[in-house]
């Protein structure tokens, strides 16, 4: 589904990603962990198409298409969804109107007809229940005045509405209380399917207790330096990153 080969990326001429490789197959859940500043959010931004990040080398294929040639909106329409680490507040843009417009543009791209107002509302009801998002919030301006946790829940609500093929969750667990963490994780699990893949960026094993990954990767200094099964996350939780950093130095 997603193949990243030898990816190099800079921002403001600062080298962040340095030869990153990753292969995600349909239905898989990949967890990406790694120290602060190692490039996890950069990877997410590059995948979503943020223009400030320049790709200087490497390639990304998504379902056979060259992702790097696509505008951010076309990536979303092809089925990529990024749940932001820091969701943006957009005063005056109604959450629900924006989502309806986005959904319809995606459907249009995919050759499907526009969703009726009635079906849309049904979908909103169903999906906001899934993440137990207060109905009031769906009607407000995008993320405006939302608490940290509410913003994260809103991201997952939007993901559920848009039903992507590949969802990238960038630290969706940070800022969530224990109940919210379970709710969000259940929401994600409810969406797992043999066709849908996830890249879950997190610092904590805790989330992976709920969303059990098929693979765990460690991103360090812009490369994936270690990959393993879900047990790797437990090792990291216990030992931290120092041993990996040392391994890197000795290599």
């Amino acid at each position, binding site marked *: 589904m997603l193949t990243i080969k030898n990816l190099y990326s800079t921002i403001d001429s600062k080298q962040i990603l340095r030869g990153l490789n990753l292969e995600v197959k349909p239905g898989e859940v990949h967890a990406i962990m790694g120290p602060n500043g190692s490039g996890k959010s950069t990877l997410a931004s590059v995948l*979503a*198409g*943020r*223009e*400030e990040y320049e790709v200087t080398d490497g390639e990304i294929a998504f379902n056979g298409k060259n992702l790097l040639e696509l*505008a*951010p*909106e076309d*990536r*979303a*329409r092809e089925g990529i*969804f*990024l749940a*932001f680490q820091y*969701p*943006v507040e*957009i*005063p*005056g*843009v109604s959450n629900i*109107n*924006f*989502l309806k*417009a*986005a*959904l319809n*543009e*995606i459907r249009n*791209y995919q050759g499907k007809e526009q969703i009726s107002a009635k079906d849309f509302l049904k979908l909103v009801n169903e999906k906001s229940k899934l993440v137990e998002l207060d109905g009031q919030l769906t009607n407000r*301006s*995008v993320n405006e005045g939302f608490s940290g946790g509410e913003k994260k829940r809103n991201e997952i609500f*939007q993901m559920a509405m*848009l039903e992507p093929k590949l969802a990238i969750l960038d630290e969706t667990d940070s800022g969530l209380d224990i109940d919210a963490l379970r709710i969000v994780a259940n929401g994600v699990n409810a969406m797992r399917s043999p066709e849908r893949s996830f890249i879950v960026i997190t610092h904590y094993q805790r989330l992976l207790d709920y969303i059990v990954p098929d693979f765990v990767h460690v991103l360090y200094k812009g490369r994936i330096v270690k990959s393993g099964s879900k047990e790797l996350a437990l090792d990291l939780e216990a030992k931290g990153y120092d041993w990996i950093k040392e391994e890197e130095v000795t290599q």
Partner: protein
Amino acid sequence: METIATSTKEQLLYSLETSIVSSIDHLHPEISASAKETLKALEFPSTRQEEWKYSRTTRISSESWEVRKSSATYDISSFRIKDIDADEIVFINGFFCPDLSTVRNNGAISVLPFSQLDGQLKQQALNNIGSETSRHNSFFTALNTAYCTDGIFFFVQKNTVVHRPIHFLFLQEGERTLAMPRISGIVGSGSKMHIVTSYGSLDQKKAWNNAVIEITIEQNASLTFDKVQLEGDQNFSIINEFFRQHKDSRFSISTLTVDGGWVRNNLNIFLDGTHCESHLNGFYLPRGNQHIDNHTLVDHLLPHCESNELYKGVIYDRGKAVFNGKVFVRPDAQKTNAYQNNANIMMSDDATVNTKPELEIYADDVKCSHGTTTGRFDESALFYLRARGLGEESARKMLSSAFIGEVLNKVDNQFVRMYVQDILTTRGLWV
């Protein structure tokens, strides 16, 4: 240079002198005579004057204009506001058109053309006209006084709630017509009313509109005023507005400039009583080569008043916007709260905006603030929307709708809001 400017002014005045008798003459010929004296002394405004620095009037002064009653019949339905149930007063080319208007006079409210004023109403109109504008020696206001094409006076008795809004439509047709309509009115003490004014072109031909609106808001009265500007790319529009507020009155005005080739709004508000409240909102969206200039004055004359001003602009293509916001706090006006904000979004590299707040504060115990911002859209907001599948165009449209939506949402009357929203939508400016 000097001689050309003088001769253009004189040519204009000469042609007006020979073609029109000011409709104010019916009230008292002295008023227009004195305005003519004023005009003799004043220069035709040019960019040499601070007040006109950014708005070139040479395109007006170099043209020859004609005052002409319309004989054509036009369908004006697109200028009527759906479902609003307003009394409509239609002017075409600056002349009141009774056949197209619905004026329902009753004991509580009188609405009459200047030419039909009599007795006490005539006296009231005379006072209103004399009192407001004689204090302002501006060229274009004096020009309207001297050569007013047609005027309406309205008077609301005290303690009256006027349920039906009054909608004044100022339309123009024909090549190079000059319209100089005037509305003069008094909202009696304790009364409440809603006025809508809209401006438009019937045939997109070159036209010049020089209107004067002067309204006195008496003690404890409340006036909501919406102004919808829809003129064509060939229009020159100068709108001179004067609102005088007395004790405990409330006034709210929204200036929604959707379209207009060359627009200059001179909005003057005088807080001439204690405990007045005044709200000024506006948006402007110059596109193509449009030039939209808003000059506002909020004059705090007495203590304990509050004014709140918010103007927002989205400037496209080679559009130009000018905002000049004067706030005066006079020595007597202690305990004044005056806020002003002007925000602009530039949609192209060729767009320009000149914004200048001018606060002059002569009292010490006051709270005043102002702010201006000019910039582009927040890139991270744009990216957020696009990352959810919205195309760049729709994402920008959504952000600009939200931006001016803050102003539009302050318009109380839902039918006016819908009317403007629909027009913005057909212009591709609203989602």
